[in-house]
């Protein structure tokens, strides 16, 4: 059985005509020119530009009338990618402005055109066609692994070998200059340029581009439209503009939509000292972040569930909901995965709580010497902050789904989850007996919740991990699921149909 569905050729074979063959040949020549531009040591501009020429010409000849836009956009994306490689491997070969134009402009334009033509055409509706066949989105697909290696590699370079991506860092500087009126480069440290504007820029571009894609894909669903507009807004304003403007004004970068424990070091004594010795904005930030952590979190979660944060505000969530959407079905739905999830996420919460408490005690009672407390801070920062939330959290999107960090590691999600389960009005209501156990809800749950397990026994879904993205409800073909807020009483009960003929479910087996 499984072998058949693993060997499907998605599109019917079409024999190739003369035009297509000529086009492919030209594109191959273009590719060759690009390769040449990487290996020739003098004057790479010629091969690079001729590479562009041949690839574009090839694409124009190759494309059919009906697919001209999508082929064109793929070409632009491809050119952008080649230029990115160029930036990485031949950073000083062309002027940053030129290469920045080629890479970012081509890539963004190409992606935008592709997304528009791919998702705008036809009637609005659930179109997950071919997701389990595509080598990019199927479980353990070849392209999925390639992408995972590329993203993971990028994170590794970003964190540990920024000098390897100098070219890229240089290339975004004109953009920084245009937005914030000066170069971001002088603020380099340790002889290397600061890679974090590059990271923030790419992150924001990804959220905006893939957010637009998501909105087109779910344009019939107003919950999805509003929610996506919200994560895009928070990314652009709170994660991108405010911190960068502050930095441009030589102020400490402040992220007003992150707070303890996701922003794990904000309550470390060193950070408190920095904030409290700063200006009034820094003081405000300190009280703001405390108020969110300990007041807004329980209150908002009581009324709306954890979704007010995880799928409407949070930047990690924002990237997962937009750039991660093509991979949401890859989350593991097994009971086994759920058991690991519960152990791991609360372990991280205990860890960060203990470290924060110890460091605060240390400040008053001087428990450890300098190097021990540094080891605590750096250790958590490295293992959880960098490796788990960054490298694994995003790098493994194409392999383990888009919410690996949110599901297995995020201490904020752990707190919000406990509140959601026991002290919140939020639930996903199951609509009587309409469920047909088709499995769409479970498959497309990015948090790996086996939604249908509840729906098919006519029980509401109340799970700590649910981020309230609403996709289960969107993909349900029988109108079974609805995210809503209601009284706590009876929110988890198996629905009691007062119709005496209906037989109630009992305790689950298995």
């Amino acid at each position, binding site marked *: 059985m499984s072998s058949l*569905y693993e060997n499907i050729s998605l599109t019917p074979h079409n024999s190739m005509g003369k035009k297509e063959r000529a086009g492919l040949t030209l594109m191959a020549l273009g590719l060759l020119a690009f390769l040449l531009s990487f290996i020739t040591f003098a004057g790479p501009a010629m091969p690079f530009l001729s590479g562009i020429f041949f690839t574009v010409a090839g694409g124009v000849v190759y494309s059919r009338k009906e697919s001209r836009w999508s082929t064109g956009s793929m070409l632009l994306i491809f050119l952008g990618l080649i230029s990115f490689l160029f930036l990485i491997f031949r950073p000083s070969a062309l002027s940053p402005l030129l290469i920045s134009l080629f890479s970012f402009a081509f890539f963004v334009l190409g992606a935008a055109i592709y997304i528009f033509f791919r998702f705008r055409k036809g009637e609005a509706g659930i179109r997950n*066609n071919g997701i389990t066949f*595509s080598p990019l989105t199927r479980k353990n697909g070849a392209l999925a692994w390639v992408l995972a290696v590329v993203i993971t590699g990028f994170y590794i370079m970003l964190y540990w070998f920024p000098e390897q991506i100098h070219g890229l860092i240089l290339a975004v500087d004109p953009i920084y200059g245009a937005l914030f009126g000066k170069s971001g480069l002088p603020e380099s440290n340790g002889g290397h340029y600061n890679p974090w504007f590059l990271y923030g820029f790419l992150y924001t571009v990804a959220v905006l581009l893939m957010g637009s894609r998501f909105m087109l894909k779910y344009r019939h669903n107003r919950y999805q439209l509003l929610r996506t507009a919200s994560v895009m807004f928070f990314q652009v304003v709170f994660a991108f503009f405010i911190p960068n403007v502050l930095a441009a004004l030589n102020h400490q970068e402040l992220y007003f939509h992150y707070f303890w424990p996701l922003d794990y070091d904000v309550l470390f004594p060193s950070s408190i000292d920095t904030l409290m010795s700063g200006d009034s904005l820094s003081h405000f930030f300190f009280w703001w972040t405390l108020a969110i952590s300990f007041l807004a979190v329980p209150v908002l979660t009581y009324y709306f569930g954890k979704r007010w944060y995880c799928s409407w505000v949070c930047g990690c969530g924002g990237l997962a909901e937009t750039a991660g959407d093509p991979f949401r079905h890859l989350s593991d739905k097994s009971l086994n995965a759920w058991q690991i999830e519960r152990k791991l996420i609360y372990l991280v919460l205990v860890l960060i709580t203990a470290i924060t408490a110890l460091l605060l005690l240390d400040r008053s009672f001087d428990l450890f010497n300098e190097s021990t407390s540094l080891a605590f801070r750096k250790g958590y920062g490295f293992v959880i902050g960098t490796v788990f939330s960054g490298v694994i959290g995003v790098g493994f999107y194409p392999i383990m789904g888009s919410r690996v960090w949110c599901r297995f590691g995020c201490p904020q999600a752990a707190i919000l989850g406990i509140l959601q389960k026991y002290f919140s009005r939020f639930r996903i209501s199951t609509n009587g007996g*309409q469920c*047909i156990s*088709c499995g769409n809800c479970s498959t497309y749950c990015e948090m790996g919740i086996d939604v249908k397990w509840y729906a098919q026994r006519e029980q509401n879904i109340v799970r700590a991990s649910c981020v309230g993205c609403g996709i289960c409800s969107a993909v349900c073909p029988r109108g079974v699921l*609805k995210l809503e807020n209601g009284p706590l009483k009876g929110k988890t009960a198996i629905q009691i149909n007062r119709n005496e003929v209906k037989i109630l479910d009992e305790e689950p087996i298995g």
Partner: protein
Amino acid sequence: MHILIIGNGVAGITAARYIRKRSSHAITVVSAESKHFFSRTALMYVYMGHMRFEDIKPYEDWFWEKNRIDLLQAYVEKINTDKKTVSLSTGNDLPYDRLIIATGSASNKFGWPGQDLRGVQGLYSLQDLENMETYSRDLKKAVIVGGGLIGIEMAEMFLSRGIEVCMLVREKYYWDNVLPEEEARMITNHIRDHHIDLRLETELKQILGNEEERVVAVETSKGETIECGFTGLTPGVHPNIKVVEGSPIECRRGILVNEYLESNIPGVYAIGDCAELRNPPPGRKAIEAVWYTGKLMGKTVARSICKEATPYRPGIWYNSAKFLDIEYQVYGSVAASGQSAENEESFYWEDAKKQRSMRLVFDRESRKLLGINVLGMRLRHNVADQFLREQWPVSKVLQHFNALYFDPEFYRNPIREMLKKFNAECNETVKALDFKAVKHLVFEN
């Protein structure tokens, strides 16, 4: 005691699960179709690439062994009710103390010339899906015969792979032998919006094949010949009761059962699509091939077998489906186009801006609610059930619409527009209560 269940669809598996919950009887489920239970209604999504086959299995594979439900992949050839055994395709005889037949349905074929050609089939079983997959390679065009629920699913499947679809439908509008005319018309338009070549009032005359016995075209009742590499036959299903042939188990169209779902032979039960109720409850049919009735029959028979004799009472009729992008729900009785009874009247509202509608059917004299139909909109099952059971007057139903409405948050609530039309048509001044005022109907049910 050994319980033998033939068929691992939703009816058989639900029976097995509930017998296990209530007893420690030995349970064996025999099926030739697949080792593990899967959701038949989700087969289309596997073909469309929305889900893998393992995603449409409602339980993980370890579940069966852990709950001591034995799965046997074999074909039952004969039932011997005297000896209380069944003969398997493997050559073995399997004894039982209680037998539950849950063999489901089979696709209708009406003796069309060419109906056994390669590339001509229905869509019901896993094997059907595999065949469809095989014949989809290099397929340019498919013709689907029959305007039912499986036909539209098949059309959607082919569309997802860029295969051209032509549908031959006998009726005046798509599915108007079940839907009222306005609804059938909306779905008809929706099908055409998706570039399906829908030919109404057209029947299949014959299917033409080539020398390799593969379909190459169909000929319609209007004398047209349509070239196609695949012909889907989807004019409905009938109970699959081949397994009882040669046994004294009494059948009409399906296996005849009493209200305890027991056949004429004590200890032999039939549930799900293959069962035919001798005395169906009012408002229900003798054979109902839908998912939830199979589930409900499975739960019911489990109780009876575990010494708590329970009659099958499915309550008020409901059902749901999805036509391409339009969801459909029905509660209670809504007559098909031209089939309304004397005493029935209906209020119909259709959105001017998007494909959605609601119909309330009520008694002309008493104004009491009889049925609800919605397209492109979701309603709350429990509330609909309460309104129908308690026979709320239609104006009161609209007044409490916000309890009934189940669309996702932020969707445009249509009640104002509905009421404008209703008040104008019926000369009333009904106002809708807001959600706060009706939430006791929603949450304290």
